[in-house]
């Protein structure tokens, strides 16, 4: 239809127009998927944090008692097997403690506001590294994108705004390429974006199949039943801790009596 009002476009101009539209559409899709990915990642990280605080720390405590028991046993029976067992149990306890109290356990719930999400979408559309023009541009975009990811996860709308402004200040100054060059650039950008889309799909799929995602799903199903999986798990581990502690104390008493 536009053809009738506008002057006749040359075929390559028409092609550029079409490709520009395609690029715009794919930019929007890519931004959407990036948002989905970052949301899923932070939800999983938040759940993992909650799990580690509520349940993981208890497993670590349980392993501590188990390690103490095997060490007592090794004292009494200094065979190499008992010693190896004790070392292994100690290592397991150390690992569990480290994992349960590590950085991941500090991740808190993350509920981005609709405004923040749409801001991130804008940023991703504009500065996604897959729309770079050259190596220098790629480096710059990658840096900005990483910053944007961090700002989003921190829920920092102001930082996102700033990133957007800073990026615009320095960007898109390079103009004046010929139509052929533009066509090639857009085609390359589209194909890079498609590759990234495929990579995102793969990552989303593997995140959804990860242990923590499956555990989270399980917890959500319990919630539907009006139950609290993490609390139930914690109670079950506490029970194990009590039993193991009693076992340790009995052993320790026997040791003293000897």
């Amino acid at each position, binding site marked *: 239809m536009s053809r009738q009002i506008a002057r006749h476009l040359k075929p390559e101009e028409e092609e550029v127009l079409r490709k520009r539209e395609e690029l715009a559409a794919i930019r929007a899709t890519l931004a959407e998927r990036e948002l989905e990915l970052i949301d899923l*990642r932070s939800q999983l990280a938040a759940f993992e944090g909650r799990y580690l605080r509520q349940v993981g720390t208890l*497993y670590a405590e349980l392993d501590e008692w188990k390690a103490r028991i095997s060490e007592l046993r090794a004292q009494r029976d200094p065979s190499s097997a008992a010693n190896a067992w004790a070392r292994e149990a100690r290592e397991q306890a150390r690992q569990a403690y480290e994992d*349960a109290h*590590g950085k991941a356990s500090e991740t808190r719930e993350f509920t981005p506001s609709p405004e923040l999400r749409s801001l991130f979408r804008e940023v991703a559309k504009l500065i996604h590294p897959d729309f770079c023009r050259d190596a220098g541009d790629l480096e710059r975009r990658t840096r900005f994108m*990483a910053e944007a990811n961090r700002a989003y996860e921190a829920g920092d709308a102001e930082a996102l705004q700033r990133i957007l402004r800073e990026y615009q200040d320095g960007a898109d100054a390079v103009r004046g390429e010929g139509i052929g060059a533009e066509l090639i650039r857009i085609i390359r950008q589209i194909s890079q974006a498609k590759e990234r889309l495929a990579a995102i799909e793969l990552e989303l799929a593997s995140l959804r199949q990860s*242990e*923590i995602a499956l*555990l989270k799903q399980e917890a959500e199903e319990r919630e*539907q039943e009006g139950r609290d999986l993490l609390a139930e798990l914690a109670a079950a*581990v506490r029970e194990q801790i009590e039993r193991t502690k009693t076992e340790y104390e009995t052993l320790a008493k026997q040791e003293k009596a000897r």
Partner: protein
Amino acid sequence: MSEQSQLEVRAKDGDSSLSISAARSGLIARGRRDAEVLTTQAESKEPRRSFELRVTFQDGRAREEWLKDGEKGDPKGQNLLACDYLFDYKHGSEKGREELAEAAAKWFRKAADQGLREAQFNLGLMYDVGTGVVRDYTEAAKWYRMAADQSVDEAQFSLGVMYDNGDGLVQDRAEAAKWYRKAADQGLDIAEFNLGVMYDNGDGVLQDCAEAAKWYRRAADRGLYKAEFNLGLKYINGQGVPQDYIQAYKWMNLATRDAGIDAEKRCAAIRDRVASKLNPPQIVEAQRLVGEYIDNWEDPDFQFDYTEAVRWWRKAADAGNAEAQNKLGEAYYNGYGVPQDNAEAAKWYGKAVEQGHASAQQSVGVMYRDGRGVPQDYVEAVNWYRKAAEQGNADAQNSLGDAYNRGNGVPQDFTEAVKWFRRAAEQGSAYAQHILGCMYANGEGVPKDYMQAHMWSNLAAEHYPAWATENRNGAIANRDLFARQMTIQQISEAQRLAREWEAERNSQPENEGHRA
């Protein structure tokens, strides 16, 4: 593994948020395992409770006369008098309530001392809950035992629980099992159930899952949801009973119906998990079983609801599970739990075949053959049958055989047809055996051979399921028709071949995998 390494590479690129590390997965996997155990934890024993008082009306005498007798020293009258006091205690005004309860206890004791078993049980109950007397488990156990020795089932049960928990008695699991058994033999559902749990856990008795399942079954038949639930778990895990999801579904469904508000969701959750493992025809069968069972209980207001199963399939299908995608396709294709929708069916089958799912490949082939949800195309149909047939799917082998027989989508070729029917027939497909019989009789793709024809028709008649009456009759008619062309010796030789085939098949039940 390659996905994992890709994740790690991206993490290094500056995606600091990625937290699914290999190191912590140990802790997380532990949580998942323990969560699974929690979900499928069997229901635990029934506790003792304040049962109804045992009242002793015997004949048509007026209540007042009984009460008079009680005052004169007749134990039945005394028991009734005590029950009366207790009724006033429960329903009367606040004033003087304690005195009423104490009076009840006093009259129960008088009757109990005279050996009236109902009164002994009632007095035990008073001590157990602490009404009219100071709560005293030792006294309770003493009176329960007297009533139990006189065959009061609830007294036997309560005494069992007291031994089980060590309330008022030295804990003794074997003794607990003994008393549960006495009450169970009298048909008390909660005692049957508790005895089942004893066998399940091996406390007080030798652990024996079959015995546990037997007692669960008895209590389940009385509508005790905990027993239905535990029996369902037995069928899920194949402990003490053959592993059977259809039976598991049936019992979990009944448990869901019989459970109170608190437990209903838990039962329903497990039931739905079981449903997600069933195929639509299996669900129909499970539904029939439940319907039949409930009919016996004269409670026909039951209708199977596929929507739950579909919900599960959808969830798993969205997560990329090929089996679930296939089932969701089947649901749309047949209109189970969703409106019939060929396009949706094609979509989900399509996702399953992307993952190489054999049964879905066969279904896609059928959709092309019939032009349902896709343009009619015999050649495409054959392509899909072939993929599934090569994976060992018997239905697909039959469809491919049909295609070669009729020349639909491939040049007609009896030899190829025989090849594929034979593979399905060897897997026990009655249809393939039926057709193979005909082909031997006609000498199509194979040399004419009535003995082979007789053998395969004979096997087909044997293997058609009960509902396929027409097909079965067809196979029988063929067999008898072929027999007319054969000598007695040939017939008995053909029968021997069929028997041998059957014996060999039974000796190696899984000869060709259905699915990769």
